[in-house]
């Protein structure tokens, strides 16, 4: 499937997301706990997929996505909030899609990735 990175400030979720991505066939090349580290990691590895939390401690996931949207990586937003709580920026961003964290699964991830093709 390709390489992926996980950007989320919650360690337990990062660990679970890593396992989910690996089960889905991705090689997880890195994890980041904040936006700046996530950007550095994405620029270094240029992964096919970035699983990106929206509420990060240093900056918004939307801001991170704005920086990466011109690059080779596909971005999937995750959040513990509902999509309707994310507002207009989620619609305007260049991400593949959005998955609520409580609904994150192999199937939902695959559905979002395939819907973009």
């Amino acid at each position, binding site marked *: 499937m390709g390489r992926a990175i996980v950007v989320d400030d919650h360690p*337990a979720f990062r660990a679970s997301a890593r396992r989910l991505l690996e*089960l889905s066939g991705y090689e997880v090349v890195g994890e980041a706990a904040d936006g700046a580290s996530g950007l550095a990691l994405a620029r270094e590895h240029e992964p096919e997929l970035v699983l990106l939390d929206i509420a990060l401690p240093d900056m918004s996931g939307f801001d991170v996505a704005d920086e990466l949207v011109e690059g080779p990586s596909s971005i999937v937003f995750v959040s513990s909030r*509902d999509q309707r*709580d994310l*507002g207009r920026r989620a619609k305007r961003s260049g991400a593949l899609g959005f998955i*609520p964290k*409580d609904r*994150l*699964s192999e199937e939902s991830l695959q559905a979002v990735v395939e819907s973009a093709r």
Partner: protein
Amino acid sequence: MRALRFALALAAIPFGLLGYHILVHDLHSSRQNAVASIVVAWTFVAAGLVAWARRPESRVGVLMTFVGYALLERKLQYSHDSRVFTPAFALGEVGLGAALAHVVLAYPSGHLSTRVERWFVGAAYTAAVAFPVAMLLVWDYPHSCVYDCGRAFRQHSSISIAPNQTVLHALNETFKVGVYGLFAVVFIALIAWRLWHATPRGRRLLAPLLLAGVVAGSRAVWGSVHEIGGTSTSDPFYWWQVAGQIAIPLALLAGLLSARLARGVVADLVVELGKTPAGGVRDALARALHDPTLQVAYWLPMRQSYVDEEGHAARLPDDGRAVMKLEDIAAIVHDPELEPDLVEAAGAAARLALHNARLQADVRAQLGKVQESRRRIVTAGDEQRRRIERDLHDGAQQRLVALALELRLAQRELGGDLDPAIERILGVAVDELQVAVEELRELARGVHPAILTEEGLAGALESLAGRTPVPVEIVSAPEDRLPREIEAAAYFVSW
């Protein structure tokens, strides 16, 4: 001082009669012109003594009296007696040339307010004495003549030391053009400058006197132009000069009279205040004192500070405007040209009304503090809700979604080997967790929606409309960000 003024008033009568005698018999002036000339001087003396008595704190009265006596002294220079002619000629131009300008520029305080005015008046006094004295020093008897030169009689200078008719003639021409021409132009410019920079009230107060000054100054310019042109400035200009000179002391009397009328207005103020609501006290005072710029600041002893009528903090000005304080009640900020006595009288008349207005201002100030306090409470409450929402999101919500994901991964990893009973339990657990996450999400949204913080009212309302079971159309919502408290209040009204 009263005795001195009385003595000066009495002395002006014989002094004037002596001047009249010299004008008629030595200068051969017409009786009509001689009377007018003496009346001008007596008007100055009379107006000056009245002003001196009514406004002893102002030097204008003294200056006016001095001008009157200087004008009477001027008549002595036409005497055929050289012992009278010489000192009278030496000082004859002081009254008309310098003291008159002095009193006009010093009105109404009696003090010259700028360095330019002081320099001008000093130069005028110097020229008014220096030129005549120089002329007396070169006086060439019997060839020299300044007045009534058509007759055979010639005046004699007692201090002539180097008689020279040419020099005397040059000095006389220069003096007339310089003092009555150049000085008059500067004089008029200074008057115009004072009017231009005066406050509206000050302009009204100064206008009559300055107008008289301009009339006299214009005549001097006109006379010097004719002197250069070599033509006569006889009758029409003489009467023009007389009218202008009489107008000056009369204008001063008018100024005094208007001050007395203003005191009458203060009496009317008491009646008007009986019908005026507390909020109209300032307007009533402004009308009574004819000062539309007047302001009232109310003293709040508990706060040890001034407030305006609305209870907002007010500072007393330090820009030159005058302030009259009514102890423990208010301060009246007014045009500095207003008489302090008059403002004090108006303040005393309005004391009760100002006291009531002060109480209202105090209540408004306290209300303002209560509103401010409420605003702080609302802000603190809003901040607290925001913090709770953040804590829910970062804490319990994160742990529950991580747990749901773990259970889902366990289902996936155990796959077909899983006992159906355990598989059912895991399924129920995942479903319950999702319900719990959804309920927690709803709770957090109810405490404070994150989208309101991130996107403002328009985005939050759009999100709210999207979750509502019935179709909702947002017709209009502010796209610009509003203060947090207002956004929160508007959102929760809609929620």
